[in-house]
């Protein structure tokens, strides 16, 4: 029995390739994509800004120097000051924290809830699926921003509730994604193989289906962070998100839209901050998609 091996072939001679898992491969693919790296760079920049920015930025972002109202960009105030005489640059730096926070956590919320529902619906099927899918349909048929507004109206307008509302409106997106992924993975041959060796459903779910449906969730999640930041900004713009004196970017835009004529910099820079951050996440999401999507490989 042991002498079988040499009898068969000389495979054992072949050189040892460095072990690398699918995640590592994805990482390598990701690193190779210029777009993705630029995106990740932007995101990283804003993350660092969120973490360390407040240390560098001018102190007292909420200190009002009414004498310094609406000053144009200058050596002292690189991006000018707002209508309360506050340094816009410092506020943008602090605002990074808020936008990223809302982005990350709302998406984590939607992913957790959406995945749970999606997996249950996809794996158990039948009436559970029918009910969950119908609920998703209902939620998707709502104009999402209106749904968010309604939810915030119920909960009260503040950043945390805006975060919750954004998380809620994105749940069906993730739910559906995971559901369809589960449905297709369920038909994969390695699931049949797992059943064939006598594996229990629960274990199949956890050890096979879940990990294999994560790649699109990660991609979608990254892109959803981008959307969530935009949604938060829109809510902030409507006065339904962060409250004063928080330097949330959307709110900064709302606060300064009256000054578009007289002090355009109050409008331009926070807008650019939003755009750049969102762009970063979008680029990164794109890169991740290419890296994680097996169809992109040969």
């Amino acid at each position, binding site marked *: 029995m042991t002498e079988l091996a040499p009898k068969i072939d000389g495979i054992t001679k072949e050189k040892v390739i460095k072990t690398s898992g699918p995640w590592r491969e994805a990482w390598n693919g990701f690193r190779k994509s210029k777009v993705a790296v630029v995106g990740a760079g932007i995101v990283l920049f804003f993350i660092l800004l969120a973490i360390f920015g407040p240390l560098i930025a001018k102190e007292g972002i909420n200190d009002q120097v009414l004498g310094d109202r609406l000053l144009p960009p200058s050596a002292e105030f690189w991006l000018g000051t707002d209508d309360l005489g506050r340094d816009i640059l410092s506020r943008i730096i602090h605002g990074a924290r808020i936008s990223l926070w809302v982005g990350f956590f709302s998406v984590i919320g939607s992913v957790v809830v959406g995945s749970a529902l999606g997996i249950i619906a996809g794996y158990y099927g039948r009436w559970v699926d029918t009910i969950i899918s119908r609920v998703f*349909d209902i939620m998707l*048929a709502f104009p999402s921003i209106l749904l968010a507004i309604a939810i915030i109206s*119920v909960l009260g307008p503040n950043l945390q509730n805006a975060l919750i509302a954004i998380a809620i409106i994105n749940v069906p997106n993730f739910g559906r994604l995971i559901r369809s992924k589960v449905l297709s993975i369920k038909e994969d041959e390695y699931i049949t193989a797992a059943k064939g060796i006598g594996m229990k459903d629960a274990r199949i779910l956890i050890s096979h289906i879940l990990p294999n449906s994560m790649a699109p969730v990660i991609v979608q999640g990254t892109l959803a962070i*981008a959307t969530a930041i935009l949604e938060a900004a829109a809510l902030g713009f409507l006065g339904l998100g962060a409250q004063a004196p928080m330097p949330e970017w959307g709110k900064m835009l709302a606060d300064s839209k009256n000054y578009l004529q007289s002090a355009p910099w109050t409008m331009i820079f926070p*807008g650019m901050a939003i*755009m750049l951050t969102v762009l970063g996440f979008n680029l990164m999401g794109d890169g991740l998609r290419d890296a994680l999507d097996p169809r992109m490989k040969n």
Partner: protein
Amino acid sequence: MLSYIGKRLLQLIPVLLGMTFIVFMIIRAIPGNPAQVILGQQATKEAVAALTTKLGLDNPWYIQYFNYLGDIFKGDLGESMRTRAPVVDEIWSYLAATFELALFAIIIAIVIGINAGIISAWFQNSWFDYTAMILALVGVSMPIFWLGLMGQWVFSLELQWLPTTGREEVRDPVEAITNLYVLDTIIQGRFDQLGVVLKHLVLPGLALATIPMAIIARMTRSSMLEVMRSDYIRTARAKGQKMFWVVYKHALKNAIIPVLTIIGLQMGMLLGGAILTETIFAWPGIGRYIYEAIGYRDYPVIQSSILIVALIFVLINLLVDLMYSLIDPRIKYD
């Protein structure tokens, strides 16, 4: 086919019912008494109490809900608590305004987006591809209200090319027949007005079109890239067909299906979610109407208009599904 449509419409019923229920519960969970809101700050306690009773707001919620459902089945969408106008009468003009804008936006988005996507895929990794895709990414990364305000600043105020707000030149108003002004002016042969109406559409239309355009371009590109790799494209080329026809005949028809889905979803989105654009450009549309109704706790308006918007949304998506079968003979609904 008909039975498929029937089936889909039947499936709509639970969705719309669930929808009415959710809307009903959410808006009633919003603090604030509509009677108070309607009467305003200056109103007396008695007036508020009287109005509350009059509006039936002191009934238990399930009675209110079933009354509402009953009305809907009778085809009665209720009347606005605030203006007392029947919702059916009012909603058409708002819907039409939004529909016109959304259609304009989606047409721009489709024409530019699809072509940009096709060319990007055709000349993959060319400078056009890179530029278009970066622009598309920037497009989806912008807050549209910001874009709208900036557009207004540049094109209306600085350059004076386009009007700032509204749907028409109010001094020479369009006589509303269908409330789709482009159509109305054409019907009446007022081509001078048509130009004005189109000018009014440009800024809000572009602001709205940006995101769908970018999404469509990206979707088209990736879908095209996939199709371009397929065997039948190779076959078409092996026949000696010109690349232009290979792309625009063979590839496009195959690549368009996922793009159609996106278009359907985006169109639905534009119909209900353009609140900010409608506010900035003073567009008398449905998004702003609902948004203001939420502010006024105008329950019947919120309930009925969201229901209608949702209905349109699902119908558009049904339409998209049916279009699949026109494009793809393999898809047969029966």
